[in-house]
């Protein structure tokens, strides 16, 4: 033990060094928030609450308000989540409870690979394949048969809120599915076996033993998917039509918070324009922080050894 003193000193240095690097995470988070707040201040002090309640976005008059972007982000994400959630839970159940082991594993692997496809590629497909198809088939159909509803009024633009909802749904399904799958796999098999032993059918077993146990975890997965949908930038920018207007119709073009940043930030002409975009970024940051905070709380409560980097 002659080198123990040296060892202890080395340990202290090593501990300090690694601690410093680990803490960089917290620093980055604080730094990002501070930076966004600082850059948004001119817009915040100039427009106040009007920035959230108003709907004028006029770079010529330097009058900025973000309601159409908030509306577009919220509506597109919520609708996408509503469509994606049942599909994802169904798929996750199929993988964990229903499919033969090999089929389940293959499906899971496929879903995970698809979660890795970059957003810009979904956008490429969306703009060159999906929107022309929507314009020539789905949208005329909706207008003709459901045009009496305010949701399906107007001209078939192709690029639209509807296109954004579809592309978001396709993109977040793999994420929700793979996290739900992890949650379901954490359900103790004793629970399931007990249900089966009592003579439950497979569905009854899922309903009584699996779903109640995984409820908060699945909720966490869905909320995480919501966060992803709200922050999704490239694919949505390419298919939503970039029009800051609030319209009930899903066929109308719309705009989202990340999209307006992507389109305008590099080419703002005035400081106020840049600051207004920064404030939109700040709202986006705040919303996604809250959402991710909630989701992680829920997921952590399910399993302490939660895998990092899943989403």
């Amino acid at each position, binding site marked *: 033990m002659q080198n123990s003193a040296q060892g202890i000193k080395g340990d202290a240095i090593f501990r300090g060094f690694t601690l410093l690097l680990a803490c960089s995470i917290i620093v980055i988070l604080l730094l990002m928030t501070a930076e966004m707040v600082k850059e948004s201040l001119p817009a915040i002090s100039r427009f106040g609450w009007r920035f959230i309640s108003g709907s004028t976005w006029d*770079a010529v008059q330097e009058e900025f308000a973000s309601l159409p972007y908030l509306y577009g982000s919220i509506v597109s994400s919520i609708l996408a989540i509503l469509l994606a959630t049942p599909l994802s839970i169904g798929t996750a159940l199929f993988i964990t409870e229903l499919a033969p082991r090999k089929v389940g594993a293959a499906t899971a692997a496929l879903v995970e690979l698809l979660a890795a496809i970059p957003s810009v590629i979904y956008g490429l497909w969306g703009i060159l394949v999906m929107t022309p198809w929507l314009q020539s088939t789905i949208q005329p159909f909706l207008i003709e048969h459901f045009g009496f509803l305010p949701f399906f009024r*107007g001209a078939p633009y*192709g690029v639209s809120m509807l296109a954004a909802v579809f592309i978001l749904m396709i993109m977040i399904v793999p994420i929700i599915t793979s996290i739900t799958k992890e949650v379901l796999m954490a359900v103790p098999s004793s629970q399931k076996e007990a249900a089966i032993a009592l003579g439950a059918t497979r569905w009854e077993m899922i309903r009584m033993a699996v779903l109640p146990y995984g409820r908060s975890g699945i909720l966490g997965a869905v909320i995480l998917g919501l966060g992803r949908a709200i922050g999704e930038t490239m694919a949505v920018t390419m298919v939503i039509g970039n*029009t800051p207007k609030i319209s009930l119709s899903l066929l109308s*073009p719309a705009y989202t918070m990340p999209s307006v940043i992507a389109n305008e930030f590099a080419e703002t002409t005035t400081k106020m324009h840049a600051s207004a975009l920064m404030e939109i970024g700040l709202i986006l940051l705040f919303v996604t922080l809250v959402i991710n905070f909630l989701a992680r709380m829920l997921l952590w409560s399910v399993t302490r050894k939660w895998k990092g980097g899943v989403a």
Partner: protein
Amino acid sequence: MFSTIRKTVLTLALLASVCVAGQASAETLINGAGATFPYPLYSKWFSEYAKIDTSVKFNYQSIGSGGGIKQITAGTVDFGASDKFLSDAELKAAPGKLLHIPTVMGAVVVTYNLPGVHKGLKLRSSDVADIFLGKITKWNDKRIADDNPGVKLPNESIIVVHRSDGSGTTSIFTDYLSSVNQEWHGKVGKGASVNWPIGLGGKGNEGVAGQIKNTKNSIGYVELAYAFENKLPYATLMNKNGKFVEPSIKTTSAAAAGAVKHMPADYRVSLVNQPGDDAYPIVGFTWLVVYEHQKDAVKGKKLVEFLNWELHKGQKMAAGMLYAPLPAPVVKMVEKTIKTIKH
């Protein structure tokens, strides 16, 4: 604390760049950004010029005129490009004196994707304004049909496409709409980005052309070259003299004929809705925007060499790409302006 972190990041970044600066070659890179309107021609110029002077490369990002004005004002690029001239306030906001160097003239065309109508749709200026105001919503509207006897117009909704970014093309187009339609003038006005009453946004001339190509029954406005390159049809518009005029190099030059006589020394002039039987109504100059005092002597010298090249040799390529070359008196003026650039 955060300012310290900022500084640290910045210092590290600079250190990293110094480390690699050693391997940087003698080649000068001149960065520019701005208008998408002349981008097809500029990209041709820069790739030709790279063959003539191998010691310099021009990197041009077509991010829109609004972006070009911002970048040159902030000094993040060596030259800006815009097809909307800077206002007095914008000129004042720049840290140094900015010069407008007109390069070519171009026409903004009203382009459309209408199955069955592959050519020569005729539109009155007031109808164009009403379409973009959302007051004419169907292709077979009587007002359009009356000017197009014999053309089979479908009973479909008109899908309006406009620019989503700050754009000189938009500035020229809305300048035109404002000058031909009172309602547009009062409700929307002119500018690089305006509050569109209707329609969907595309990013850049490329984005609008792409969107129109992708979307049946759509209408939008792009620079002539974009419509031509993409085989998109464009409308024949009625001009100030009440004649239907097709956009071309000839009709673009005709629009400039009158304005040239009263060319201001800083070239800040609008060419829309000019009189003359042959004058196409939506025409504009496009400018490079550079500082009179170039900070970097090498870059400044290369930039001036390029400007002289484009003013003479470059002009000859313009027609091939559907831009109208500068009228001879303007070339003479620009020669003198380029001489005032100090480096």
